[in-house]
């Protein structure tokens, strides 16, 4: 294998970790309350702008500012749950789909009015790490490391804390959880908040690497759907694995065919997995 190919695959893995975090938010919300959040991309874009504003106006290190972005994402998610999702939680899927789509359009509209669609950039650079012929931009390494930490944190939270256990109980059987005294509405809003928080953090991490506009979230939302299907809907750890698979595809395909074929292959696999293995390559939570 040529160094260019290995380097491209490594880039794919690093970016795949970030895709994984973005998809994790989507898959968590689906897994707990069976809602497809079409506002996910817009929240990612808001995460990008939040990080940019915190860095530009408060002079914070971008990685420290991510804590603020996470908090904002959480608050945004909880607010979105109570305003646009809660009353429809038992309605058919289409209702919540349309409701979150409407929120997406409002967020994008307001964001366009406030921030315009002019590309923004966070003026921040890190050294490139070179290993032989391979070069790894520092921002990608840091983003991937934070993505892995966030995944581990979410896994520990869901599997080692009482609140996490309560969320899993609600996801498993809401009626039974309520009979056991678990406040399901609070758990649902908490889950939605965490899902949005993950989207905002993923957006922030992407903003440290690439320029962005208020419309940037859309392409990452599309990738998140592919990752969710690859990793298994409702499976947060599967999302990370799915993200890495997607990253590998994005890194590897250009060596065999023109780059414009990448989305064609990605979505062909998306359809194939849906048909052949609907629970995803790594199995969805049941």
């Amino acid at each position, binding site marked *: 294998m040529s160094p260019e190919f290995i380097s491209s695959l490594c880039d*794919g893995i690093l970016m795949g970790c970030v895709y994984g975090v973005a998809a994790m938010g989507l898959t968590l919300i689906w897994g707990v309350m069976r809602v497809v959040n079409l506002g996910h991309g817009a929240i990612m874009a808001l995460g990008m702008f939040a990080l940019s504003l915190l860095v530009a106006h408060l002079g914070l290190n971008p990685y420290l500012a991510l804590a603020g972005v996470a908090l904002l994402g959480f608050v945004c998610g909880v607010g979105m749950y109570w305003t646009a999702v809660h009353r429809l939680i038992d309605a058919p899927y289409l209702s919540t789909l349309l409701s979150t789509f409407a929120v997406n359009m409002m967020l994008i509209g307001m964001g366009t009015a406030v921030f315009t*669609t*002019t590309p923004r950039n966070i*003026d921040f650079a890190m050294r490139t790490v070179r290993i032989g012929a391979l070069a790894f931009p520092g921002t990608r390494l840091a983003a991937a490391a934070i993505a892995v930490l966030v995944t581990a944190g979410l896994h520990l939270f869901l599997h080692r804390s009482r609140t996490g256990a309560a969320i899993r109980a609600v996801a498993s059987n809401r009626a039974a959880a309520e009979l056991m005294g678990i406040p399901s509405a609070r758990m649902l809003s908490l889950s939605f908040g965490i899902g949005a928080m993950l989207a905002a953090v993923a957006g922030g991490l992407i903003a440290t690497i690439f320029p962005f506009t208020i419309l940037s979230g859309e392409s990452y939302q599309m990738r998140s759907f592919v990752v969710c299907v690859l990793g298994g809907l409702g499976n947060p750890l599967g999302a990370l694995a799915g993200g890495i698979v997607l990253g590998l595809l994005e*890194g590897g395909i250009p060596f065999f065919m023109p780059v414009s074929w990448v989305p064609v292959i990605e979505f062909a696999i998306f359809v194939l997995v849906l048909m052949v293995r609907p629970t995803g390559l790594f199995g969805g939570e049941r």
Partner: protein
Amino acid sequence: MSSHPAFTPRAALLLAGLAVVSAGCGRAPSPAADASRVVIGFTASQTGKLNIESARQVNGLTLWIDEVNRGGGVTLADGTAVTFAARYYDDESNKDRIQELYTRLVGDDRARILISPYSSGLADAAAVIAEQYDRIMITAGAASDSTHRKGCRLVYQVYTPASRYLTGAFDLLRALDPKASRVAIVHEKDKFSSDVCDAAKSYGETRGFRIAAFEGYDSGTTDFAPFIGTIPRGADAVMGGGHFADGCTFARQLFEKGAGGKFTALLVAAAEPKFAALGEAARGVIGPSQWEPLCAYSPESARLAGVDWYGPPAAKFIEAYRKRFGEEPSYHSAGGYAAGLLIQRGIEKAGRVETAALKSALDGIDMLTFFGRIAFDVRPDSHGLQIGHEMVYIQWQRNAAGALVRQVVWPEEGRSAPAIYPAR
């Protein structure tokens, strides 16, 4: 006791609603027709990805309008002095809005002369409206050849066409390294960049280069890693790019990945003063430029070329631009100003502002300005294509104080410093 019906809150709301609806149905007040004032209409990308380049172009045009109006305007054959006013809308860097906005400029704002939006894709859409409504349009920031090969009669190009935009980079590379053979081209898949890079590829191949990679990326791409991965190790040069935003990101990621170090030539972005903000990633990058402050066009060079000199010298333009906008002019700024000079010269020659007279005058123009030579192809199948203007190539180099500066490195006769090769 009154017999009039009560004026209820509901009736008040209804009346207010009717008032709002009737106001909305009415046309916006049009500017009063004033024979001594020529409205120049255009759209500007005040938002979106073309914002930087478009803003510079508008600045250049604004400066020209200020100066010509301050000088009393242009005197017509009948002795009337006409002044100029700009009317413009934000096109959001979006081609879909162009035709609606240009129709409004002609219809509601009564624009007599049009300036194109920035970029070839948008200008191509605007050209249709100019032809439809019989208006002269100067394509100030649009280099694509194809707009002028569709039978346009009223569209005049200021820039060197796309087919000659990047060809000099191959000449420069050949001059620097006669053994160089492998070139990778990665470009934005928009109309302008595709035209430029298709023409550059053909030209490079005729000069004996092998195009080792030829990839297009979508407008708005931010992750160039897959494209950088396709650049073969040991490629002698990387060329391409598109516009400012993507070009800067591409340059930064090339630097981070250690690719394209020997010779990198990027469209548009590298010629912008703000490109220096990339720091070390900008060093060594070459950019084709329509104009540079170091260009030494003068009345003397006009005399030697046997054409008329027109307009201010470069130093005067640069000083006025700095004073007005507090920044260095780029070639986009100079192009905007040159579009104004072209209109001015055309009206002076025609002595009228009517489209037919102005067209006749513009067809016959061959002049040298601080921006370079301006003359048009008047054959029906390529009418309005720029045939006088030539590109220059700049390279970002560090000066003695360590600051990044642009140096003209090609053509050889106009260079301000030798090109650094390999650049890194």
